[in-house]
């Protein structure tokens, strides 16, 4: 008797289970296969490509590219440098400021290289007077979570890759524009409270090698952020514990503005 009950119980469970699982299987197949909509081409604002000469003379064009910091993540308005940099620069020059931000969250050095290689930014860069780059934070973050033992080795490999990507990126930028000033933002360590001596050493090494590479270009400047953030984490880092907050963006902005002040006045 018990056997019979058990058997019918199993038949019922199996039957219902089988039907439900088959439905689920069908759904799983349909949701992740088949044709995707062809993504429409990205239409770039065409103003960048067709500036008349007179317009250009009266305008300072700034292009911001790179990772989430370039894009403005962590800022309460989500605008980041596009908002604060003009505020800092406007009383230093009589020209109109035009800012274009092409930063994308999560970008690493290899991503801006492919972004540049795609050629979509060529027009934009050609008309730029200043090119602000923030990249490398996402690269170096992959190291910080690793264990101490293999950190050193993987750091070297990572840094080599990063520096060669960055060098290639600058070469591409230079093909579009010989004289635009490249402003490169150094990396800071948002995890200072939990990081080791080794982490600090790594980020300093990273920054100094980047600095050397950037300064080897005649029209480029390396703007450090490490020192700015070091004792001001609570003040300048957003709730996510990673990006600058509004205050942080303002602080970095004013530092950038000071670094390029002389050029802005003369340009």
């Amino acid at each position: 008797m018990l056997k019979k009950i058990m058997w019918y119980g199993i038949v019922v469970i199996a039957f219902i289970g089988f039907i439900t699982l088959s439905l689920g299987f069908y759904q799983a197949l349909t949701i992740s296969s088949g044709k995707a909509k062809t993504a429409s081409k990205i239409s770039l604002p065409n103003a960048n490509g067709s500036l008349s000469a007179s317009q250009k003379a009266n305008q300072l064009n700034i292009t911001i590219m790179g990772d989430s910091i370039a894009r403005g993540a962590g800022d309460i308005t989500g605008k980041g440098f596009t908002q604060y940099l003009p505020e800092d620069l406007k009383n230093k020059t009589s020209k109109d400021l035009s800012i274009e931000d092409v930063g994308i969250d999560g970008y690493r050095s290899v991503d801006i290289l492919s972004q540049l290689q795609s050629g979509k930014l060529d027009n934009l860069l050609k008309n730029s007077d200043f090119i602000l780059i923030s990249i490398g934070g996402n690269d170096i973050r992959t190291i910080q979570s690793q264990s101490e033992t293999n950190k050193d080795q993987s750091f070297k490999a990572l840094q080599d890759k990063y520096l060669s990507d960055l060098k290639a990126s600058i070469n591409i930028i230079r093909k579009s524009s010989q004289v635009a000033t490249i402003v490169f933002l150094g990396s800071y360590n948002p995890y200072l409270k939990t990081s080791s001596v080794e982490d600090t050493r790594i980020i300093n090494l990273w920054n100094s090698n980047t600095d050397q590479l950037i300064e080897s270009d005649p029209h480029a400047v390396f703007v450090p952020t490490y020192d700015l953030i070091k004792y001001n984490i609570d003040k300048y880092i957003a709730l996510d514990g990673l990006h600058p907050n509004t205050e942080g963006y303002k602080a970095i902005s004013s530092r950038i503005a000071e670094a390029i002040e002389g050029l802005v006045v003369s340009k």
Partner: protein
Amino acid sequence: MKLFNLVENEILKTIFKKRLLLILGILFVLIALFSYGEKYTIQKNKDQLTKRIGVSASYNWSKLSEQQIISIKGRLDNPYIPDSEKASLRVQIEQLQYDIDHGINPVSSSAGKFSSSFMEQAIFMFIPLLIIMLAADMMSGEASTGTIKLLLTRNVPRWKILVSKFLALLILEVIVLVFSIILSTLVSGLFFGYGGWREPVVAGFKVIGGKLDASNVRSVPQWQYTLMVYALAYFVAVVIGSISFMVSVLVKSTSASIGIMMSTLVGGTILSFFIADWKFTRYLFMVNLRLTDYLSGSVQPVAGINITFSVLVLSAWAVGAFIISFVRFTTQDILV
């Protein structure tokens, strides 16, 4: 004897041999360990987050989520973002908004989240191993204990014996999957609470031409996602079951057939490292078991491999295995 009764016999035999009970026991212990581990990790993450941000009491996740929404919205407005990324950004906003509306800390887990993430981890190794335990002695067990003689001397055609055993296996696989979803919900619910079934989950990734395509990504409720994950796991179970069944027909000893299946499975995961370069490996069943990765979008995209491909390869193996066992069993001489 009718086929139905034969199947009944097979199932009851497995139950009274305590094989099924053992499998459910293993499932229970593992799920309990896994839930505990997950709870521990979440707590550690929260502590780390608190420590890093420097808020002493507890960090304000809803404010953080709101800021993330603003940031993602800003990203959506960026004309330089590829369209393919926009769909997933929209789903992210939807998820965060849902969490805020329902007071759910995005870092925490729930029975719903746990049961699907458990199966996503279990689908390529743990579930196959359980199924191998179940299937590998289906036929060889009869051979090694000598009961196959009794079975064949009864007035039942051989094909009926084989088909009844195979059907019994299909039913037992459903039972294993149904119990794994029940157990994972019951056990993890003790740790994380029994809710979370209506939270939105990202789904709809596609692999097209070797690239992960996210342009059709949308949200599905957690219960539906979990159902899909377990359905894919059932499919994997059926495939592994058929192959182990074939091995147990071909090999007379149970330990040999379990050994063959386990080493193939483990060896296969090593082979999957070559999948991008060495074309032959993609036709092996072992490298195609991670079907749930296609759902969650965590798949490493390789040109020519998508969910349809994997499902076809696996189906071909299952059908082939069944045909081989059928032919072999109905024609072989049995000398015991």
